[in-house]
Every structure is written in C-alpha cells, then in structure tokens.
C-alpha cells in the first residue's frame, strides 16, 4: 500500500503540492486526474524519489520511502514515461531488458533477450522489432516498448505517466486495454496520471482528482459520474465554466 500524508512541494514561489493525502491500496489501479500543471507528475515523481518533497510523508507498506534502501525500493517499481523515455543508443530489446542486463536482477544475455521478446509479444509487437532502434518506431510502438520495459522485471507496482498522450484514439484504446490487462494479470498496484477520460474509465479502480495542490475528490471509478463535486463534474465534462479556472 502506498500512503501519502500532507505531502507538499514548491518550486520557488510556485506551491505545486499543498498537502496531498492519498492512499493506494495494494492491487488497486488508482488514476489521478487533473488539469495540466496541477502537479500530477510531481506527485508521481515524489513517490519514486525523483523529486524530493518538502514536507509530509510518503510510505510504501508502512516504510518511509525517503529512508528505504534505494535499489531494493526501485526494484519494486516499473514506470511508463509520457514520451516513452527509451534510450536512443540501445536497441529495442536492450531497452526492454535494461534491468535484466545489469544490477541485482542481471541475467545471462540470451535469457534477458528471450524475456524482452516475450514482453514485446505481450504488448503486441513482433520479434522483428527487437533489433530496431527506438527512433525507427512510431509513437504508438514506442509507448508499447516503454510498457514492455515497465513490466520486464515483473514489478509489484507500475506507474503510468500520461500513457495515451500524443496517440490517436484507436492506439489510445489499445494502450488502455493493454494496461488494464497487464495490471490485472500481474496483480500489480498501479498508479496512472492522465487527463484522458477514456483512459480513466478503462484503467481505473479508484480515481483521485488533483486540483490546486490538493486531492479534491477520491472514490471508485463507478462513482465518478454521479458525484456532485463541482471540480470533478467540470473536469469530466470538459466545461470551460466552473470552479476550475480555464486560464491557469
């Protein structure tokens, strides 16, 4: 279980997180929604320790993430980055098997390649893609490779940062379905940040709405449409008028 309590983060005068409280139970798929610039990515990066929060606590299974042994802590996570963040200088299979080629999870090269190809198949890519470089792939294929890399070491927790940004609706649907299938199949805890409502409905068990540096609403995805919260209603219906200012 991931638990955030009173988490704050500022960049100079810009107070991005103002005391976020959020619980992500084990095995749950939590989707965090909110407008651009509301601190969704900062929240996710704070959990991983890529950004150091100013105050408050973040715990994983009761252990403070800032005090956890770094390698063991990160070995529990997989992450799909918004732009894929594939390493340009490595072939696709080397990207997928990155964790399996070095460090504590190191395997023999042939075995790592076989696992990479199996994960590529799992995300709907052929074996021929394995020896290409990321720059030779389309945006949708890069996202799939990023997804394969995120699940290669079979992590307990997977983070998805805007998984469908920049993709056409059909490819977005494919990625959403893959994420849902994989999360269920692996029994992983997932946290997704997005402002794409089709992703929310496809991926989420629970939804949290972030606005103004605080979690304004949280609940099951089934309650999303029926909630009377004006922030959620404005966001999910994409209305220009409401408590969320259109110009931020």
């Amino acid at each position, binding site marked *: 279980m991931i638990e955030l309590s009173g988490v704050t983060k500022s960049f100079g005068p810009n107070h991005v997180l103002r005391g976020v409280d959020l619980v992500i139970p084990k095995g749950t798929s939590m989707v965090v929604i909110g407008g651009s610039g509301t601190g969704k990515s900062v929240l996710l990066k704070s959990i991983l320790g890529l950004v150091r929060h100013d105050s408050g606590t973040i715990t994983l299974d009761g252990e403070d993430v800032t005090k956890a042994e770094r390698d063991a802590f990160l070995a529990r996570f997989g992450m799909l980055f918004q732009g894929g963040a594939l390493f340009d200088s490595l072939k696709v299979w080397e990207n997928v098997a990155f964790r399996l080629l*070095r460090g504590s999870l190191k395997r023999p090269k042939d075995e790592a390649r076989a696992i990479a190809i199996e994960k590529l198949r799992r995300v709907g890519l052929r074996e021929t893609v394995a020896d290409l470089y990321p720059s030779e792939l389309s945006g949708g294929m890069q996202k799939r490779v990023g997804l394969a*890399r995120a699940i290669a070491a079979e992590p307990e927790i997977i983070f998805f940062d805007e998984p469908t940004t920049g993709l056409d609706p059909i490819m977005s649907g494919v990625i959403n379905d893959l994420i849902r299938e994989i999360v269920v199949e692996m029994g992983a805890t997932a946290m997704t940040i997005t402002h794409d409502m089709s992703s929310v409905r496809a991926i989420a068990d629970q939804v949290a709405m972030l606005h103004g540096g605080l979690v304004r609403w949280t609940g099951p995805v089934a309650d999303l449409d029926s909630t009377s919260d004006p922030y959620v209603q404005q966001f999910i219906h994409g209305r220009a008028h409401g408590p969320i200012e259109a110009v931020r």
Partner: protein
Amino acid sequence: MQAVSSLLAAIGRPVLALLAAIGRVAIFAAEALGHMLRPPFYWREFGQQVMQIGWFSLPVVGMTAIFTGGALALQIYAGGNRFGAEAVVPQIVAIGMARELGPVLGGLMVAARVASSIAAEIGTMKVTEQIDALTTLSTHPMKYLTVPRILAATLTVPVLVAVGDAIGIMGGWLVGITRLDFNSATYLKNTVDFLQFWDIGSGLVKGAVFGFLVALMGCYHGMNSARGAQGVGAATKSAVVAASVLILAANYLLTEVFFSA
C-alpha cells in the same frame, strides 16, 4: 553612497555567481570521482566511450597536428632565419608540439567535438526523461553516464596527444624536407636526439587533465541542462566554452608547475 553600494552590488553579484558555479562543479567532480571508486562499473559503456572519444577523434586531432607541425616549421625557419638559427627547426618543432601545441590544440579539438556531443546527448536525455528512466531502472545516472565518459576521456586524450605529437612532428619533417631543403635523416636525428622523456611525458599528463576537464564540463552542463531545445543548445555552448577556457587555464598552471625555474 547609494551609487557606491549599487556598484559594489553589481560587482559582487557576478563574483558570487561565479563562486557558486565553481562550487557546484567541484561537488559534481567529487561525486563523479567517488562513483569511480565504487561498483558497479559499466565496462560496456566505458568501451563505447573509448571509441567515441578516442578513436573517432583521431582524424580531427591528426589533421590539426599535421597542419600545425607544418606551419610551425615554416614559422621557426622564417624567424630563425633572422639570426642564422634555421637549423633548430627540427628541435623547436618537436619541443613545441610535445610540450604545448600537441596537448593544447588536441585538447581544444576534443573539447569542440566531445564536450559538445556529451552535453547535447545528456541534455537531450534529461529533457526527454531518459535520466529519470535510468533512475527508475535502478541505475545511477552518474555511474552510467558520467563515470564512463570521464574515465574514457582521461585515458584516451593522452593517447590522442601522443599520436598528435607524432603526426605534428611528421608535418614539420614533411615541410622541412620538401620546402626548406632539410636532409630527411638529419631532421629526424635532430628531433630524436633533442627530445627528452619529460617533454613528451608532460604533454601526456596535460592530455589526461584536459580529457578530464572536457568530459567533466560536457557531463556537468548536460546534467544541468534546462528544458527544451534552447536549454540543450545553451548547455552545449556552455560546455564547449567552459572546457576550452579551463584547458587554457590548466595549461598555464601545469606549465608553471612543470617547467618554471
């Protein structure tokens, strides 16, 4: 009174900013050196950087050296002609290349080629979240990106300097025998007889220091690149400028240490 205080503030601000920048670079360098001493070591990445920094810089260093050696021979001959010292061309070309021009020009060419490429590559990795991705894959960016580059540059630039020295001396020899009527065997004998071990050794030490500075500046500016294409461009420019200035400053200091009476 207010004018004086404004003047002092105007002087103090850039001085403080410079000192802060020096401090940040020193901390970065100390961190990189610390990671060099602790496993894991990424030997494959190190090997790739040896090729990128060392092998692929050979043509540019070689071309620079051969033309510099040739021009140096012509200049020394023309200058020496004024007081009947034309015969010292082989000795001065050799000492000039080995002690100064080989390491400095080689270092500057590597700075232009390598510091820019390191800063641009790491800067782009930063803005495309590849550095964050490395961290989430339990790989320390300093160990994976910085250590192999600094180590490769520190070890390969002296080799480049040695090759550059040889090519530069050969450039002087070529001009000497074709344009200045030197006897080939005499030219080479004078070169070999005159050169001492420390002439070459000091240049190699300089090469190692320059290689370290080039990679350090490339990595530091890449890792601290601002967002966007403009940020990467600025990081690249800063890396080349800083590496070049540091090479020239370090060259003076090392020359003082090695050769001042």
